[in-house]
Each structure stands twice: as C-alpha cells, then as structure tokens.
C-alpha cells in the first residue's frame, strides 16, 4: 500500500457532525409534514369503523354487479359504441388543440419568445387553461351547447392547449443553445433558427408528448361522460342512476380494454420514435 503511505500527511477529512443546523431543519420539516397528515386525517373524516360498517353495502354492490350483464343488443353493443365515441372525443380534443398549443408554446418559451410581454402573456394564458380542470370546462359547455360529445371535445381541447403548450414550451427551452447560436452567427433569421435548429431537435419529444396527452385524454373523456358530455362515461352515469350495477361492470370492462389498448399502442409508438 505504498500509494496510501504517501498521503499520510494529508489534511484530516472534514468532521462528520451529527448535530447541525441542517439536521435540525430536516427534523422540523419532517415534524411539520407529520402534523399536516394528522390534520388531513381529521378534516377528511377518515374513519376505519365507518369503512367496516359500510362493508355489507359494498358486498351488496358486488353481489349485484357480478356477473356482468353481457347481453349484446342491450348492453355490450351500446357500451362499445360509447367507447368509440369516447375515443373520438379524445382524438378531436387532442388534435384540434395542436395549432394553438404550438403557437403558445413557441411564444411562451424563453428561447423563442419575441419579447417578455408576449412571453408573460402566453405563459399566463397557458397557466389559466391548465388550472381549470376539463370537467369544469365540460360543465360550462354542457350548459351552453347541451348534452352530448360536442361539449366534451371543447372541454378537452381547452384544457389540453394549456397542458400541451406548457410541456412543449419546456421542451423548446431545453434545446441545447449551441446550434441556435451557431445558426445566428451564420446569419439565420429567427424563423430559420426555429425551422432548422429547434424543430429537428424537438420533433420526437413533441410527438411523444402528444401521444402521452392523447392517452391521458382518453381517460379524461371517460370522466367527462359522467357529467353529460357523451361517450361511455354517460352510459355509466345512467347505469348508476338505474342501480344497474351489472351493466356498469360490463361498461367498466370495456373501458379497461380501451385504456389498455391505447396505453400500449402509444407506449409502443413512443418507444419507436425515441
């Protein structure tokens, strides 16, 4: 061990201190977090006994739900039709949001925004659209244009612009600045920098995020159906009102199949383009 003997005169290692300000801060933070959980438990009226008392209610529910009602004309076919509409709501809501989301993403990314005013305005608009849940948009549009899939598309569209625009603008901001600088030096204009340096760099990420959002939107449009915006969610709503839990179970199974298929296909495509 001659190599280590040579360092016998090295400075001593920094002292390890168990008690320090950092330790105190971490302990306080953990304490506060624990207190927050206690308060949350109380305020949300969590109760094990109520759950036990409600047990037989749930057993009744499952008793009625199993076996699922698989009659083709009455239940299964309408469920499949509803699932198709749900898929279409998600598809249109996602696709129609692309142009606006793209514009707001470019204007709301620090690297491509023409000035701070436009940047802040785009950011604020995106934040607003993101902050309002699609279900709130759906309730507003159902009131405005009536029940059906159309208000569902509108609601998804608005919320998706907010999320998509934010994710895309972050992708733009993460593009390495070097090639952009190099093109500026070569005399390229702003629009040319976007088309020749930024677009090639972000294209796969953009498509990946788009597929991810489609996948999320399929699940969101199910929920939108519950508030009257068409699709299979609307059928579930009806089944619950009529206490037809065996029909509802069929509908849930259809949803499960739909979500699994969409999830896997989108994951497969995202893996391919990565």
């Amino acid at each position, binding site marked *: 061990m001659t190599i280590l003997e040579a360092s016998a005169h090295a400075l001593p290692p920094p002292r390890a201190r168990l008690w320090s300000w950092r330790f105190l801060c971490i302990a306080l933070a953990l304490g506060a977090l624990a207190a927050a959980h206690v308060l949350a438990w109380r305020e949300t009226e969590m109760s094990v006994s109520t759950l036990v008392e409600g047990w037989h209610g749930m057993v009744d529910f499952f008793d009625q739900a199993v076996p699922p009602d698989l009659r083709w004309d009455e239940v299964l076919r309408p469920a499949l039709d509803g699932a198709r509409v749900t898929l279409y709501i998600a598809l249109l809501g996602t696709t129609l949001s692309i142009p606006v989301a793209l514009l707001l993403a470019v204007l709301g990314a620090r690297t491509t925004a023409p000035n701070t005013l436009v940047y802040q305005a785009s950011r604020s608009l995106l934040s607003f659209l993101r902050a309002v849940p699609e279900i709130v948009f759906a309730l507003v549009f159902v009131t405005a244009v009536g029940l059906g899939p159309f208000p569902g598309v509108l609601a998804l569209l608005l919320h998706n612009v907010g999320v998509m625009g934010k994710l895309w603008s972050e992708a733009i901001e993460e593009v390495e600045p*070097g*090639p952009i*600088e*190099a*093109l*500026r*030096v*070569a*005399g*390229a*204009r702003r*629009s*040319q920098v976007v*088309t*020749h*340096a930024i677009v*090639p*760099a972000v*294209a*796969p990420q953009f498509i990946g995020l788009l597929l991810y959002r489609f996948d999320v939107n399929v699940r969101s449009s199910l929920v939108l159906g519950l508030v009257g915006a068409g699709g299979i969610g609307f059928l579930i709503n009806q089944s619950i009102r009529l206490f037809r839990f065996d029909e509802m179970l069929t509908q849930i199974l259809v949803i499960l199949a739909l979500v699994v298929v969409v999830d896997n296909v989108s994951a497969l495509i995202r893996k391919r383009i990565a």
Partner: protein
Amino acid sequence: MKTATGTFAGVRAQPLDGRRGAGEVALQIRDLRKSFGSRLVLDGVGLDVGRGELVALLGANGSGKSTALRCVVGLVEPDAGSVRIAGKEVIGLSGAELTATRREAAMIFQHIHLVRRSSAFDNVCCGALGRVHPSRSLLRTLLPADIRAEAMVCLDRVGLADRAADRASRLSGGQQQRVAIARALCQRPSILLADEPVSALDPAAAERVLSLLRQLARDGLAVAAVLHQPDLARRYADRIVGLQDGRLVFDVRPEELDEDRIAALYATERQT
C-alpha cells in the same frame, strides 16, 4: 501522418506572397475593450488577420481569447474599440448592413454545435441560411438547388461528401468538427474564426482539423484559431499571438515562440 513533435521546422511560416489574396487584411481589431461586471476581460486588444494566413491565439483561461472572437461575430457586444471586417467597420452598424458585413466572418466552436438529429448535409445547408429568403428555407426540401449543390461542394472540401446523408450525431468528433467547417464554408466567408476547434478532439482528429484549417488559409481565407496546445500552434500557424489579462503580450512567428514565452503566458492564470 506527422508525429507530435519536432516537425515544426517543416511547416514554418512561409512568405505570404504567392497565395491567393495574400497579405490583404481581412480582419482588423483595434483597442477592443469589454468588461463583464467588474471583471475586465478585454483591455485594448488589437489584432490583424490577413487573407492567406492562420493566426493562432494562445493564452490561459480567462485571458480574453474567446471573447475577442465572439465580439467579431456579435455574440458579445464590446464596450469600446473597432472591428473591421473586409475593411468595413462593424461597431455602430445595424440592421441589414450589419448582418451582411458579419456574414463575411464564419465561426466554428469547441463544442461543435451541429444540429445533432439533422444530417451532415442539412447542417451544412444551414450555413447558407443568411442569403436564402425564409420562404425558401421553411422546409429543407424547398432550399434552392444551387445552395444544395454548394453545400455538397463544401462537404467535399472537408472530405465528407460520402457521409452527407448520415445524422450528425452518428459521426465521430473529428468528422463533426469538419462538418461544422463545411457549414462555415457554406456561409461564403472571407474570415474563419475557430474557438478552440480541437480541444474536444483526439490527437489524430485534431491534426486533421488543423491541417484543413491551414489549407483553407492557403486558399485565401483569413483564419484565426484559439488553441490550447502551443505545440500545435507552432506546427500549424503562420503567426502566434499571446493574450494575457485581456492584452496582447506577443505577436511572433512560430519559430520565435520559445518555452520562456509559453511559461510566462500560462504562469499567471487569474483566479476569478
């Protein structure tokens, strides 16, 4: 292939006459000053680079070499001084005239800065964007045929025409830097600035890039390269200038660069 040492006598700076446009000053920097906050980076730098010569800039980290080059292409705005590109003063110019004058000076970088997912060919075409109307450059397929042909000539000049369709990220570091040189050539510059062009490359690739830069100088370009290897500077440059604390401390022919000068140049690396 030359060995790393002992051959600089063979490539000693030759008389500049006899080369295309030789001697004509393409880049003239005078009394350039720049501070970042309270830190003085350029303290009155002056430098001439003529057509047909390769000038190497040496200096410790923070001595102002890169900043000087960045002032020329507009990546850094100098506080004071004069930069003349092909006889035309650029400090104080603005708008289309500034852009047109600056296009005469191309730059390559230590970190190469190619668009990694684009092909070598598409990257080279980017060098010509400054003289293509945006409507013709919106899509790569819309680029005029003569620009595309010129890009191929540039790629051929750096010996990579056969890799045109390959993605930049699939090329080796040395090949990527040569593609970056081709992109710079596609800009049709008279001045080529190189900011540590070989610092990230292995020795063989570094030799190849530097001999390419020297050939381009022989063809009439004015080349200024920041280098961190005095030995490479001796073997490839026609002239070597040393920067220290934002000032030019020597301007010599390669054979005049002795070890004392080098030791003095790197002795006082500034603590920032």
